[in-house]
């Protein structure tokens, strides 16, 4: 007879099994993805941080000693957003629609809620790995000076999750990838440029500035920069973290719903 106790819809065991599976899959491809996810932020650091930065004499309004120290930490959070955004679009639709591995997992005791949660967590882990490697580059260049910098990869992971959760929830409602290009061009790319990674958003017109500050990526940039340069206060740290967690929570709740609906049809 089947046990009469009602099974729970979300368990640590289920998440662990899902993540084990992803780790085994990742073993085959991790080299190429790790190298590209490390080179990508280094390109920004070198060209904009050092290249463009060499033309900037007065950094007093930035609060850092040089421009690279301003851009380097900002790139940590914005690249986290771009990486998480990318993983939440095509690869997510692929896993749900074409590969069939998610359907296969749902023929096991795994629940759709565990699958949605594990899917988002796995993106967070990928971001965490990339951010940790990039942080070591910032340490090498003498940009990461504060001991608090050790927490910056977590800030990057939270930033990534704040996009991975709602975007994965959205992707689970899609049949085609036609909206993904526009999301990249008029969603993620402008957020990248207006994130405060390259200049303080206080330079922007008021309405644009407030729009920037409402985006989770601005909070990720501020949090990462504050940790890496050691300038963050308690109020800022808690506030930015809480705002990112709010996006993650709401996005995750939507993702559980949309993954469940999609994978039960």
């Amino acid at each position: 007879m089947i046990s009469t106790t009602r099974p729970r819809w979300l368990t640590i065991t289920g998440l662990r099994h899902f993540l084990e599976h992803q780790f085994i899959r990742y073993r085959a491809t991790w080299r190429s993805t790790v190298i590209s996810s490390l080179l990508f932020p280094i390109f920004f650091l070198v060209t904009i941080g050092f290249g463009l930065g060499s033309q900037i004499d007065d950094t007093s309004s930035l609060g850092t000693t040089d421009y690279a120290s301003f851009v380097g930490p900002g790139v940590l959070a914005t690249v986290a957003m771009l990486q998480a955004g990318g993983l939440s679009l095509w690869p997510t639709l692929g896993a749900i629609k074409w590969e069939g591995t998610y359907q296969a997992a749902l023929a096991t005791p795994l629940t759709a809620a565990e699958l949605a949660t594990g899917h988002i967590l796995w993106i967070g882990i990928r971001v965490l790995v990339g951010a940790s490697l990039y942080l070591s580059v910032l340490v090498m260049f003498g940009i990461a000076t504060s001991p608090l910098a050790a927490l910056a990869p977590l800030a990057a992971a939270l930033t990534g999750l704040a996009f991975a959760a709602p975007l994965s929830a959205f992707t689970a409602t899609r049949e085609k990838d036609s909206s993904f290009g526009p999301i990249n061009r008029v969603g993620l790319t402008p957020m990248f440029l207006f994130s405060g990674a390259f200049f303080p958003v206080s330079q922007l017109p008021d309405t644009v500035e407030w729009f920037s500050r409402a985006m989770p990526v601005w909070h990720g940039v501020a949090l990462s920069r504050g940790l890496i340069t050691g300038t963050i206060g308690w109020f800022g740290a808690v506030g930015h973290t809480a705002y990112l967690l709010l996006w993650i929570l709401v996005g995750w709740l939507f993702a559980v719903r949309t993954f469940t609906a999609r994978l039960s049809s």
Partner: protein
Amino acid sequence: MRPNSLRHLGLAATIGAMVRPVEATKLTKKFGDFVAVNGIDFTVEPGETFSLLGPNGAGKSSTMKMVSTVSPITSGSLTVLGADPQLDGRNIRQRMGVVPQEDNLDLELTVRENLVIYARYFGISWAAARALSNDLLQFAQLTERADAQVESLSGGMKRRLTIARALVNEPELLLLDEPTTGLDPQARHLLWERLYTLKERGVTLLLTTHYMDEAEQLADRLVIMDQGSIAAEGRPSELIASHVSKEVLELRFPAHPDGTRNRPEGLDRHGFRVELLPDRVLVYADDGEAALQTFRNNGVAPSASMVRRATLEDVFLALT
């Protein structure tokens, strides 16, 4: 394969013999206004092989998705292994195996990794999963390909691996949706033999197919589905006995130059039930040779004729 390997498979079914693996009453599935499954009743008994037979779009796969706890039922009632798929999905899936219509193996993993990782989802330890994978690779006759990438396997091998994967948790009930669709004849026969082995061990099989020979080979009982409803139910031999004659006479007529067949009018006026197919005419008769003589005596001159035993295909054509 080793004589003792996988012998445990049938045990659970024997112990659970009091519980019917599947009981469906007025089971209905709607997608908007479209009724995919229209109030069907069926019961699968422990240890038997039960088949849902029908053309594409008959509602077989929708039924399977409800039984596999993936798709919620619209109305009626359904119990699987004695439990409600809506409320106890996780517990049911722990004791059930599912072979989907499309192979959904993990193409990034090797053959063995597919089995081991899948076993982990059922809470089987790494060590036990690796040991189990040896038995399952032997069952699927894939031992030599254990470390190959799944992508390099033939269609028949992928199918056998998908079936082996569905056995990692020693299921009491195995669901197979169109298990041999797209396979060549050798691969089909090998797969039937593997499924027959499971059946001999007492595993309850619920399978859908649109192949008559497959149902005839494997099924103890079957239902014929058409447009969401059950058109007939019974043992293969019973269905043949009650819905068609013992023998079938096939008549062929020459083609006109315009492509139509030069068939005489009124073939159904000679005392036999006939079925007009595009390429031939089926005549249901208990004595096919005598029927052919009757036609000839009445001036019907087919270009070719054949008498054969009635099959489920004839039942199918008669009912749908």
